């Protein structure tokens, strides 16, 4: 009897186990059904092109016709014989390393202001966010007019302050700063992300700090910044990735000029691929961009262990 019962129990266990694994299989099938669109996109439009672009980087491929491998010729040309490559890289780095930190500081300060509990905050939030919604060609053209050296708003405002404004987009020293200024107007997205993070900071931390006599500066430095540091990290990485892809502003406003002062990386890539049809060379350039961005991201992630605070990890 006991043996029989044991066997029956065993059989029941097996079938239950089988049922569970069948259920798990069904769940896995359903999972793949739902993520199928992304899987197709990932293999067809991300991984496939990524690998193919690596192949092309070592070739002399044009848009049409046969091509062959040329070894490191593209990279040799890029690093040794193409002064525009370096110019474009330096310009882009200049843009990224000035506009991203400045933009983050402004975004954080605006978010801190917007986090105060006043009436009518929704209106201000909208005003500061609007430039990001409208960041298309229309707004770039508007800034072209604002930067007009003789009749633009900016130089008029400067003249009222007794300053003779520069030629902005016509002057090689001022064209890139002009594009950076235009971009600083566009801090809405990191600002909203900061704001969401600030609203999650527990109020009682501030209250107990105030009891200890902490002022605004101490509270910001000791409470706010550590608690929003994961978001600083997020905004910094996304900001840098975005900044290395600056294109439209330079293409529309200056075409890369004057004297190549705003000739950015993507402009060079665009010209090689879609104007000269040099798909191989453009792919090599794209891969260098990829490696630069990857390296930057890794460096930031590595240093982030020292300055990003995750609340869940017991203050480490």
């Amino acid at each position: 009897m006991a043996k029989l019962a044991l066997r029956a129990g065993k059989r029941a266990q097996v079938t239950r186990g089988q049922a569970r694994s069948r259920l798990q299989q069904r769940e896995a099938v359903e999972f793949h059904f739902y993520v199928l669109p992304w899987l197709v996109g990932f293999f067809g439009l991300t991984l496939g092109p990524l690998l193919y672009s690596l192949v092309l980087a070592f070739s002399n491929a044009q848009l049409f016709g046969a091509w062959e491998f040329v070894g490191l010729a593209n990279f040799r040309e890029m690093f040794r014989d193409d002064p525009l490559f370096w110019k474009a890289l330096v310009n882009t780095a200049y843009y990224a390393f000035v506009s991203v930190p400045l933009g983050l500081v402004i975004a954080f300060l605006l978010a801190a202001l917007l986090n105060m509990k006043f009436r009518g905050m929704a209106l201000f939030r909208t005003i500061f966010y609007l430039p990001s919604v409208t960041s298309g060609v229309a707004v770039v053209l508007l800034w072209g007019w604002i930067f007009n050296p003789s009749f633009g708003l900016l130089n008029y405002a400067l003249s009222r302050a007794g300053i003779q404004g520069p030629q902005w987009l016509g002057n090689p020293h001022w064209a890139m700063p002009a594009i950076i200024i235009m971009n600083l107007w566009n801090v809405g997205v990191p600002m909203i992300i900061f704001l969401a993070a600030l609203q999650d900071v527990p109020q009682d931390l501030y209250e107990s700090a105030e009891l200890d006599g902490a002022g605004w500066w101490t509270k910001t430095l000791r409470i706010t910044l550590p608690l929003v540091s994961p978001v600083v990290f997020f905004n910094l990485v996304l900001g840098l990735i975005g900044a290395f892809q600056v294109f439209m502003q330079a293409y529309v406003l200056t075409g890369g000029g004057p004297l190549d002062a705003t000739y950015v990386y993507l402009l060079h890539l665009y010209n090689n691929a879609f104007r000269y049809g040099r798909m191989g060379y453009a792919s090599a350039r794209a891969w260098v961009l990829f490696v630069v961005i990857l390296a930057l991201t890794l460096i930031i992630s590595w240093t982030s262990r020292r300055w990003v605070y995750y609340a869940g990890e017991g203050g480490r």
Partner: protein
Amino acid sequence: MVVDRVAHHPTHAATLRPALARRRAAAWRHVLKAAFGYLLLGVLGFAFALPFLWMVSTAFKEPWQTFQIPPIWIPSSPTLSNFTQGWNAVPFNRYAINTVIITATASVGTVLSAALVAYGFARFRAPDREILFTILISTMMLPPQVTIVPTYMLFNYLGWVDTFKPLILPSYLGGGAFNIFLLRQFFRTIPTELDEAARIDGCSSWGILWRIIMPLSRPALATVGVFSIVYHWNDFFNPLIYLNSESRYTLSIGLKYFQNAYGATQINLLMAVSLIALVPILLFFFAAQKYFVQGITMTGLKG
């Protein structure tokens, strides 16, 4: 002297008075803080709004007024002719229709496919789920320009260049890693008890998605929709490389060529048509903004 010392001594009866004074000081500090905050916000807000006001002002000016220094903010005889003249100088009607078609179809695709994929990642277990999710997240770090050359060659091979397909169809393949991530975070906040109850009532997983998850996720879906509409409306790079025929241009490309032809001399026309191109996205944003802010704060972008 003695009285003074007594008054400042915390253990004496005078403790009540400092408490009151403290409260009054706190109230004053609050008023001061509010006044200072409003002042700062007002000044900064005005500075941020100024470029838009400048655009509106210029769009209504006669040509000679645009070159007046000091600039006039309110034109003496505002004219609407800039809008009609600029808009009709180039087939902007066509470009506007093209932009609406691309933006609408691509955004529907983004919301639908991001929701499907996010649902998969949020609710179903599979041996490779975590690996795939890590891959998905890491593609956010990948600059799209790295794949642009082979992607262009692929679409060119398929005969899709100079059609809307390269601008629309990719949206139906996942809708972007960031959007999937955002929706997945949101879906995970919906209690699974609701799914289970529906399942007991005989609902399939497909039914759960449509009858429970989607209706409860309106703010998050609206957020993704707004992001997508703004992105496609403003997109310049993709239309620039994929569209060649003038009849297929979008507003961005049309504006760029309009600038080449008219920009330097007729800034009032340029500002007028730029303003027309801005207004739909502004109206849309105002309509969607309630959902949008809610969606952003609720989805917990921080992971």
